[in-house]
């Protein structure tokens, strides 16, 4: 009993000190935790940022569009994109239209996962995936709606817009072989080189369940080679090719030198790392590769349909297309050329059919995971 009283006395003493701490802490919170406080008052739905930024809407900069732009509101975008580009597009769109963009940045797998999890209460307006076949699968399942009036849609590369204008390939990446220039003096020239014992244990491949583009390469390769293609992946596995997360996770060890090569990695990451000064470079395999347009689409359940359409228009505008090339991606419009990278018409392609890839995607992904796990 004595001990108990004694410690309670100590606590009594110490709580005054603790109180001082709390006062100090709350001061700190007031200084830098402004966002959180706002979140509370606004907890019923809209993001805290919404109220701030909608007030800066600029009606004078209205675009040429049949529909009068709504004065305010929001658009919810789920995007699997390079984060830097997605942020720039969001900021550009917000500045131009005064509409707040609520954005979820993830990988293709995570975006699809989130959509599936929210099937009961869908909130997304626009979805951008890094995998064209996955987008086709979404369209086939009736998730999307068409927007034939989209501005500049006629200027897209051939095949980067589907027949009834559901999917807009506003940008694209090509898949190549990225290597560490400090470690590799003779880079591989084709996919088949990577089964050579010379490359044992030093090659990464992104996880197709997380990286839509890696899945496109795998299914495109299988489409080109037929079922014999699986033997190639079996040989790769036997040669110690490691499956490692999303694109960046696969590339990072190559930058630091833990691995020498990443196969079927997206090329824009290699270009931007190279531009930063990291010791990496990329080759496109001689037998051909896959270029996967990144598909933007409007959800059928889109709660803010007008804003969603404006967002698609914006993606195809000159302004957004120049943001795309600035991020080392291939521009979606055929009339715009990138000057900081290899262009679409200079890359040799495998012989593949998006429909086949879209149908087989899930099965291929599962089989590949089983093989490489």
């Amino acid at each position: 009993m004595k001990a108990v009283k004694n410690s309670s006395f100590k606590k009594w003493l110490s709580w005054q000190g603790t109180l001082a701490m709390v006062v100090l802490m709350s001061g700190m919170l007031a200084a830098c935790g402004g966002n959180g406080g706002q979140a509370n008052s606004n907890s019923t739905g809209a993001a805290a940022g919404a109220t701030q930024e909608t007030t800066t809407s600029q009606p004078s900069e209205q675009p040429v569009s049949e529909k009068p732009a709504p004065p305010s509101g929001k658009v919810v975008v789920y995007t699997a994109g390079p984060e830097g580009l997605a942020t720039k597009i969001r900021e550009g769109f917000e500045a131009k239209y005064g509409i707040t963009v609520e954005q979820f940045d993830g990988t293709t797998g995570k975006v699809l996962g989130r959509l599936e999890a929210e099937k009961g209460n869908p909130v997304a307006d626009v979805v951008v995936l890094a995998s064209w076949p996955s987008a086709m699968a979404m369209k086939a399942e009736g998730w999307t709606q068409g927007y034939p009036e989209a501005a500049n849609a006629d200027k897209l590369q051939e095949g980067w817009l589907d027949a009834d204008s559901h999917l807009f390939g506003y940008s694209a990446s090509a898949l190549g072989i990225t290597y560490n220039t400090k470690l590799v003096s003779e880079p591989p020239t084709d996919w088949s080189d990577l089964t050579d014992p010379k490359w044992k244990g030093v090659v990464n491949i992104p996880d197709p369940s997380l990286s839509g583009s890696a899945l496109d390469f795998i299914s495109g390769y299988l489409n080109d080679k037929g079922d014999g293609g699986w033997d190639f992946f079996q040989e790769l596995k036997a040669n110690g090719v490691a499956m490692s997360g999303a694109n960046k996770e696969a590339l990072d060890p190559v930058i630091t030198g833990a691995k020498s090569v990443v196969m079927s990695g997206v090329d824009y990451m290699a270009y931007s790392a190279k531009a930063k000064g990291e010791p990496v470079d990329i080759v496109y395999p001689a037998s051909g590769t896959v270029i996967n347009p990144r598909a933007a689409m409007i959800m059928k359940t889109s709660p803010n349909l007008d804003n969603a359409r404006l967002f698609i228009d914006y993606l195809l505008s000159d302004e957004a297309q120049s943001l795309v090339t600035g991020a080392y991606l291939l521009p979606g419009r055929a009339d715009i050329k990138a000057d900081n990278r290899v262009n679409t018409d200079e890359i040799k392609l495998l012989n593949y059919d998006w429909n086949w890839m879209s149908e087989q995607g899930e099965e291929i992904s599962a089989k590949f995971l089983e093989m490489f796990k």
Partner: protein
Amino acid sequence: MKNLYRGGGLRLPAFSWRLQLGLILLGLLIVVPLIMVLLRSVMPDGRLDALAPLKVMSDPGLFTIFWNSIALGGWVVLGSTLLALPMAFLSARTTIGRHAWLDVVLIIPFMTPPYIGSMGWILFMQRRGFSEQILPMTSHITPYFFSLFGMVAIMSLHLFPFLYLILRNSLMRIGGSLEEAGSVHGGNFFYLLRRVIVPLLLGSYVMGALLVFVKTIAEFGTPATFGRQIGYYVLTSEIHRFTSSWPIDFGKATSLASILLGACLLFWYVQTIISRRYQYKTLGGKGMRLRIAPLKGWRAIAGWGYVLLLLLFSIGVPYFSIIATSLQKLRGDGLAWGNVTLAHYAELLSPGSKGWQALSNSLGLAALAATAAVLIGTFLVLQMGNFKKISQRSLDLFSLLPNTVPGIVIVVGLILFWNAPWMPVKIYNTYTMVVLTYVVFFLPYSVQYIKASASQIDGNLLQAGKVFGAKPFYLFRRIMLPLLIPGVLAGWMMTFTISARELVASLMVLPPSMQVSATYIFSQFEQGEVSLGMAMAVVSVGMTTLVLVVMNQLGADRK
């Protein structure tokens, strides 16, 4: 433990409707979501099928995953025992124990979020990683680290402080007199060890070991980073995969979650049985005297050598990698003085940047969650009264439940419940949902701290108040509340620090446009700049550790 509280007389007039309110609150927050997980797993397609979770297990792939979790738990218990036991002896029985700063330092590994720690280890041990750059000859050893052994080592180094604190405290409670009594009766050292010390330690060891076991199988960070790299998949990482990555399979996720839940509850049950059997009264009325062995000569060298090695591996290596990476200009250029830059910190701390927003979101959400948790916690503790009624005891039990249940299971349950099509209150995908999840996760901490304060209030104080004619509310305001405040504050701080670095809940329930520091770091590893992620890690760990150190200095968390 409960016996202690029963004596404390909080005899506010018993308003049963308040008790009921408390039960309903906990039911909605904790119990119903967990039941939703179980229900969903036994009704995968709308029909009742009690064997559905077992059918999932018959899938050989998923059984391997289950077995991986259990095996990992076992190995980590072994690993952290090997690390903690010598340290506990050194600290409780030798002069090393006089250095109080060791206790603070030894908590650092545990306070380091595991996803950051294991990323540090990966960067250190990988080919051409920091270890090879410092000591090129280690290149022969490092590849072996990327195996189950490495994963066990990382997790043991993270969790051993738990076991260390528990073992040290119970070693200190075994007074020297018991051992001397043994010696007097002619027992030699090993006999004493076998017949006195080991049995007395066993009860608390089992408690600590099971805590470590449950923490290991519930852990998400290390499997999500290191485990994925070596292809070692466990229940938590697969649940996350099935719920957040295409192709989604909620049925499988809930089945795995139920299995994980079942395993944890089973192990807790075993633990209570064992520790009840090995409970001895070591705290007597007699004065306590500890036998402290002075360390001299080679013993001192060995003892301090062990301490330093332990600190080197548990703190030195991961933090070296984290800090070095956060300062690198070009990751491809490795360790070099010319390659050092503060640019990542500058970017992170420039107001308005994504990192800055994530950081302030973290602090704001953590503050809200901590405030809500202590308010609810205080309310609940007041209703627990003297723990005599079953309803009062179940209030206690339910409020501590989230400590037993793996976080990822709770999150799955909360999502199922709050995102159900029939749910009238639409808070899913809003800030409220995040705060709610944090509150549910960390309510046990608030309840425990406040309960500890409440148990020390003597019922006489309230009776005295009543004698002088005070109304119940006045009693509460002028007597109860001031006496509860130390516990409330300790609970607030604890909840604040751990909410600010919570990963798994944040990953799964944050609304689309929002990031907190933990998800920011994680997404930098996945998508962006590892250096930027590490800079954020340094800032957020630094801040939370600072809070804890100050708290420790003030003695607010001394039991």
